[in-house]
């Protein structure tokens, strides 16, 4: 049995503008020690998925509307608040994009680290302090003992992120959810922080969900990837398979949006035109249709389900959820061929994206071009 199984997770936010359909039936499994990338543009539901797992959705706006989160055999959504509190930090930890929002600004780093150790590890006094110093040393904070007395604002962004990692990994959790842990950082610091997460989790066998909007970041850091769009998983595969043979037009678009630092062969960037939908209603068709160059008439009216895929496009044999043999799955009526994925656009002669049905055209907002 997998360490973590998300089954049809559905999250809604109630706002003044209406109900945001943030996460729409997301399912995936994760084995112990596995690393999964959760990738998509901002607003596509990555953070909401992470927060829902830990039951940290902002209240009262955010609510899990359906589905299950099964972690080590227990359904997290039905645990008591006390059981959940005990589990957070000890079994599942989360690192956020902006460490300032999760560190308490009026407490020293030492107090916050030691608090975690005392609460979960029954360490006291000097022992707790000693372990705290050790942890700061592990994450590369210079003058660890002195740093215990400092406040979060006295650290740079990269250092704060290290402190967060020290706190998150203090209890050797079985699952770490890292939500854009390096988006605000320089490449050099990004490399340091990701390397650190990788090293520490490898040692402890901790499974990692790495959330990011940049496919480039997860290329070398994950074993599998779920690509999300508008609250749906639209494509999932092993990292190698996804990069070698992306099929979903959105994945293809993301890949062609990334500038490459290579010395040669800088092709043109092919951006995904437009912007993600606001998700105030459930999509009537494929949520990506308004931006998709591959769309056919069916795309406007039928939202495709995530189904297994094999090389020749048919399902064959056993479907595998995790590990290096995980089945490539796709939610698309008209996937990109290998040549099209490489070119970044449809290549079939005379093919044109299907125009929206006239009634949809009538309600397209004027400013929907990004």
């Amino acid at each position, binding site marked *: 049995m997998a360490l973590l199984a998300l089954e049809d997770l559905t999250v809604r936010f109630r706002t003044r503008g209406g109900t945001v359909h943030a996460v729409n039936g997301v399912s995936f499994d994760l084995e112990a020690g596995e690393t999964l990338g959760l990738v998509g543009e901002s607003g596509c539901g990555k953070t909401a998925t992470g927060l829902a797992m830990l039951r940290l959705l902002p209240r009262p706006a955010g609510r899990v509307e359906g589905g299950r989160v099964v972690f080590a055999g227990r359904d997290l959504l039905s645990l008591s608040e006390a059981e959940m509190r005990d589990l957070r930090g000890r079994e599942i930890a989360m690192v956020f994009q902006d460490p300032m929002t999760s560190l308490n600004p009026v407490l020293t780093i030492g107090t916050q680290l030691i608090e975690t150790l005392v609460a979960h590890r029954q360490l006291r006094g000097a022992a707790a302090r000693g372990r705290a110093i050790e942890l700061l040393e592990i994450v590369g904070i210079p003058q660890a003992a002195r740093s215990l007395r400092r406040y979060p604002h006295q650290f740079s962004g990269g250092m704060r992120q290290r402190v967060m990692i020290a706190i998150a990994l203090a209890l050797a959790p079985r699952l770490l959810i890292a939500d854009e842990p390096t988006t605000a950082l320089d490449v050099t610091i990004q490399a340091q922080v990701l390397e650190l997460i990788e090293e520490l989790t490898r040692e402890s066998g901790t499974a990692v969900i790495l959330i990011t909007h940049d496919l480039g970041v997860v*290329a070398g850091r994950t074993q599998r990837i779920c690509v999300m769009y508008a609250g749906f998983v639209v494509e999932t595969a092993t990292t190698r398979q996804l990069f070698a043979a992306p099929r979903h037009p959105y994945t293809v678009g993301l890949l062609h949006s990334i500038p490459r630092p290579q010395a040669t062969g800088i092709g043109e960037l092919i951006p995904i035109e437009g912007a993600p939908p606001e998700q105030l209603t459930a999509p009537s068709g494929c949520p990506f249709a308004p931006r998709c160059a591959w769309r056919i008439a069916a795309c406007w009216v039928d939202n495709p389900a995530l189904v297994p895929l094999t090389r020749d496009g048919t399902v064959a044999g056993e479907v595998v959820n995790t590990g290096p043999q995980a089945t490539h799955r796709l939610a698309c009526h008209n996937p990109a061929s290998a040549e099209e994925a490489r070119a970044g656009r449809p290549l079939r002669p005379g093919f044109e994206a299907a125009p929206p049905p006239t009634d949809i055209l009538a309600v397209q907002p004027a*400013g929907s071009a990004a």
Partner: protein
Amino acid sequence: MIGSPTSAARRPGDAAAPYPAPGGATPLPPRPLLEVSGLAVHFPIRQGLFFSRQTGTIRAVDGVSFTIDRGETLGLVGESGCGKSTTVRALVRLLRPTAGSIRFDGVELTRLEGDALRELRRRFQMIFQDPYSSLDPRLTVEAIVAEPLEAHGVGTARERAARVAELLDAVGLPPAVAERYPHEFSGGQRQRIGVARALALQPELVAADEPVSALDVSIQAQIVNLLKQLQQRFHLTYLFVAHDLAVVRHMSDRVAVMYLGRIVELARAEELYRAPLHPYTVALLSAAPVPDPLIEARRRRIILSGEVPSPAAPPPGCRFHTRCWLRERLGRPEACETVDPAVRSVLDGHLVACHFAEQVGASAEQRRATGGGNEDAGWTDGGIGQTKGEAENPRSRGGRD
């Protein structure tokens, strides 16, 4: 050809020119649009509330020289705090430089004041990083884009409205957005509004300070392409600032790498990415993620130890010596700690400030960072979907040893 930065040094009477004049090449190239030489911006550190006294100096920009030719894009990269924004703000005279010379189309900017400055300022504009805070939330898009026109008394109200419509169209926004407010737009759309405003006065030089850093990759690509297209259409010259090397590579003809208030390397873009000569550039390149799991599995990064030292107390000698991998490799030669390396021209027009730049060219680190050499090959033009086979996914996070 786009002139090398050394062209400034060839003019007689320019004694302050920091670069050695190359031999050969006799005909004088056309004068660059922008010539910056020895630019410094220092901020005083003050202490005490009432009788504040200066207790130190932040050397945010500390002797920076470069030129930009007409129609060219110069990229400026470096880590947070290295002085990129301060350089840009000094160029557009949002800040008064402490020292140095800035010539725009031959006119010395640093001494210009009042109307003369205002008049010249029409010709260079700025785009800011943060599309959220750089637009006044109380103004409509129309008022925001028309603001520079009004400030310079350009046209009648009706002509200005027509110009705004034209600009919005140029940046890919429908005319209806004119009546709306910034908060109604996504980050990418707001950046388009910022670009429209910057273009209102038909500037020649546009300094863009991290214009895509706050955006998702998908939207980044839209803005990068838009900026390139506008450059063609309006014959713009760009100074393009970013901390992302790949984005800079895409935008720029030449690239300058900054570290602690100085330019440590400046070369044509292909050259810089193919054969970086400063240990810092090599480290930056090696840290940049490559969107290809097969390449990532083979790469070995140079992890720079520690963080950038404070510009209030830059290290003596070479400013990079506290984090330099090459210095370690060479057994900590004394020169690194005692002698501030001058900017020198190594190959034609390839400028570098390192005593041992020649050693970088021969290092395995350079080969690995750029993908050259055989043992780590693979950093070629490999596009999407070209990494055939190997779908069996070995534990890819274990790529380094």
